[in-house]
């Protein structure tokens, strides 16, 4: 953890909080500095992002929190956000006179702890210390979590993280409230931000069982419902349900609504798919969904879910619905994109099946993830992912006339996230918020393009890794990536981690670099470790871990790094570590993975490696989880992908 130091809270806390303010407008800088000093904080101001970065790098532990403007000349505020999240894992608050929803959402998905609209009042600044505390708390939690192998812990943590996230989201004026991890990118500083650091939990069989049991209960307690909802949120977000950009808080709400809506569509499909995929009795699934829907939305529409389910079942094209949602979501989140990427490879008939399945799976994933993120059956995840991907693609396609392009775009993002997508779908579970990073992709086009391209590039290098292959083989473009993703087995699932990381950091590159670096040289987690510290992005870990792991195709490790599945990536990684450019690419993706989890190569790769059987994957996942939990502390699982949390990278 970056600042895990002991509580680090002096008696006068929050007085003395070390704040770094970055804004290129002198007037605002002066006013802000003044206000911060009145709050008794220790203020350092700078007007250039690069200066800020070098200040932070020179003195890693010299600051507690960063406040940065969005529009800056030398570097985009979001990029800075990501970098900080990756490298230093500090909470970052974004601010701007721009209060457009998209921008704010971008901040959230990139992992900003909060988003302040100018003019800023001192009241808004008085509370920023809580982001610091929250982040540290989560980091500690992560550490603890890693120690404990159980998934449940992760899940809980995740939930708490989510909760934190959401609560922070509600705070303040439009603050995204914390970076919800943020996606993933560091900038999120993870704890608060979207990137919940929870180590990713692998969706193990146990988890699945839990889930099923819960479903059966039907009476699902609120918690489950919430979980389900979360999971669904992940998906729903895609559909653009998360219209509420206001931080997490809204997300939840929106998610609920979205969930509700999407769920209905999903429910039908999901149930089917789920049943098929996970062999869960359709009924259970339905129940679950209904429960999930009913609960999460907490809206009078309760009866709907059930009805929808039925309709869904008969709904031939559930995905459309899903797609619709997704479409919307696309703009909002990358998630959708991710999925798209995945399905590409699927064959038409598979796709057809997948659609349904995907949707359900998607939701299932979500639900599952909600439950335990951690270990879900790989199968489920995988199938989910695939289906998700498909559905998304399909959905998207149907929805968006220009899908190919849009998908491509998301894919690009996804490319990185290809694993992430999988993850996202899965990771959605709780991470929803965090997840959105993926969803962020909608606007992330910019992002993904770069990243994806890089990813693809990296993927190529990695190519060898089965997990990665999907991405790599394809070529740098998202379209290819999608197909690629499918390649490995269609699972991109583990990508969640990546995704979460991705969202967290836009700067995947950054992560990748770390990841890449780790990969190569170290094959050891050592490298990763360092990266890990830096990048909380789980993705990074995940991806990397995979590489280390078994030579297997290094699937970016279940964590969602399928992309990285480093196995192959290692090769590249090596190159990368040396070659900056590669690293960047790789690092981005990998780093993401890595940062979060100790790149347990073995674990991760196993997930995706097609070579591995599902069983292997599962065990790999489980292993990873364990590993992650054991050692990964720093992994900030930005996303709770847990299912894939490869975070347990043996350090």
């Amino acid at each position, binding site marked *: 953890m970056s600042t895990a130091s002991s509580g680090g809270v002096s008696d006068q806390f929050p007085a003395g909080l070390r704040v770094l303010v970055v804004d290129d407008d002198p007037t605002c800088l002066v006013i802000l500095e003044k206000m911060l000093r*009145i709050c008794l904080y220790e203020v350092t101001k700078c007007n250039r992002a690069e200066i800020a970065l070098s200040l932070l790098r020179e003195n890693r532990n010299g600051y507690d929190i960063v406040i940065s403007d969005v529009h800056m000349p030398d570097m985009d505020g979001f990029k800075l956000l990501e970098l900080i999240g990756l490298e230093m894992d500090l909470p970052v608050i974004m601010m701007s006179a721009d209060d457009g929803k998209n921008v704010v959402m971008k901040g959230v998905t990139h992992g900003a702890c909060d988003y302040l609209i100018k003019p*800023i009042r001192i009241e808004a600044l008085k509370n920023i210390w809580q982001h610091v505390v929250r982040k540290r708390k989560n980091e500690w939690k992560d550490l603890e979590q890693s120690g404990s192998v159980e998934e449940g812990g992760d899940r809980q943590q995740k939930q708490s993280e989510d909760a934190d996230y959401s609560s922070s989201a509600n705070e303040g004026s439009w603050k995204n409230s914390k970076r919800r991890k943020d996606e993933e990118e560091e900038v999120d500083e993870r704890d608060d931000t979207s990137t919940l650091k929870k180590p990713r939990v692998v969706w193990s069989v146990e988890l699945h069982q839990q889930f099923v049991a819960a479903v059966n209960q039907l009476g699902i307690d609120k918690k489950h419902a919430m979980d389900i909802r979360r999971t669904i949120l992940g998906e729903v977000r895609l559909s653009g349900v998360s219209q509420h950009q206001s931080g997490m808080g809204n997300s939840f709400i929106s998610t609920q609504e979205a969930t509700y809506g999407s769920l209905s569509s999903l429910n039908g499909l999901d149930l089917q798919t789920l049943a098929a995929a996970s062999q869960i009795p359709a009924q259970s699934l339905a129940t679950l969904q209904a429960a999930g829907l009913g609960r999460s939305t907490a809206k009078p529409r309760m009866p709907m879910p059930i009805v929808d389910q039925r309709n869904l079942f008969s709904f031939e094209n559930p995905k459309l619905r899903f797609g619709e949602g997704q479409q919307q979501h696309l703009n909002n989140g990358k998630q959708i994109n991710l999925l798209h990427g995945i399905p590409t490879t699927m064959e038409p008939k598979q796709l057809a099946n997948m659609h349904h399945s995907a949707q359900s799976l998607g939701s299932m994933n979500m639900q599952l993830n909600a439950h335990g993120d951690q270990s879900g059956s790989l199968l489920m995840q995988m199938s989910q992912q695939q289906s998700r991907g498909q559905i998304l693609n399909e959905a998207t396609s149907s929805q968006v006339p220009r899908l190919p392009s849009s998908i491509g775009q998301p894919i690009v993002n996804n490319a990185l996230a290809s694993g992430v997508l999988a993850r996202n779908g899965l990771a959605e579970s709780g991470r929803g918020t965090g997840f959105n990073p993926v969803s962020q992709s909608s606007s992330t086009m910019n992002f993904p393009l770069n990243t994806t391209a890089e990813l693809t590039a990296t993927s190529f290098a990695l190519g060898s890794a089965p997990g990665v292959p999907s991405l790599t083989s394809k070529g740098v473009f998202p379209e290819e990536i999608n197909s690629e993703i499918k390649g490995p087995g269609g699972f991109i699932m583990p990508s969640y981690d990546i995704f979460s990381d991705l969202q967290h950091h836009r700067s995947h590159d950054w992560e990748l670099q770390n990841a890449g670096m780790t990969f190569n040289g170290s094959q050891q987690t050592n490298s990763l470790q360092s990266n890990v510290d830096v990048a909380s992005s789980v993705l990074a870990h995940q991806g990397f871990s995979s590489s280390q792991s078994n030579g297997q195709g290094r699937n970016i490790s279940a964590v969602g790094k399928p992309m990285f599945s480093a196995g192959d990536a290692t090769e590249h990684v090596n190159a990368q570590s040396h070659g900056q450019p590669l690293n960047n690419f790789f690092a981005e993706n990998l780093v993401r993975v890595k940062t979060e989890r100790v790149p347990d190569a073995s674990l991760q790769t196993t997930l995706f490696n097609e070579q591995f059987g599902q069983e292997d994957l599962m065990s790999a996942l489980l292993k990873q989880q364990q590993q992650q939990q054991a050692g990964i502390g720093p992994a900030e699982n930005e996303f709770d992908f847990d299912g894939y949390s490869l975070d347990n990278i043996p350090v």
Partner: protein
Amino acid sequence: MASTPLRQQLSIMRQSLFDEGLLDHEQVSYLETLENEDDPDFIENVFTLFLRDSTRYIDSIEKALETSPVDYPVMERMMYRLKGSSASLGASKINGETNTLRKNFHDGDMESGKASLQKLKLEHVNFKEKLAVYIGMLKQAKLSDY
């Protein structure tokens, strides 16, 4: 501070700035509360900074508009900066004009955009003059207090 004639004048001017809508009473009052003995020139500094920077921003916007093709990123950035600083300062008219400008350009309405830029410039010139006087008075009043 004693209510010297200078101070009184200052207060009158201040009020007129509010009345004319050039400055936002609430925001300025708020900023004034931030000032304390340790930093008595805070408000002046902020005003001065703003005048200097806002001039720069507006010039940049104009230049960006004149290049061909139009340099939208720079324009965007400058507009946001102007929006943010004017909001933080309480320069209401400037802030309002900037918002109009932004909206016009976002809507793709170049003609209206250019027109509102001209209006912004006028407002800005007017604002600068008045605020410069006010700052001068502030400085003087402070000196007379010592």
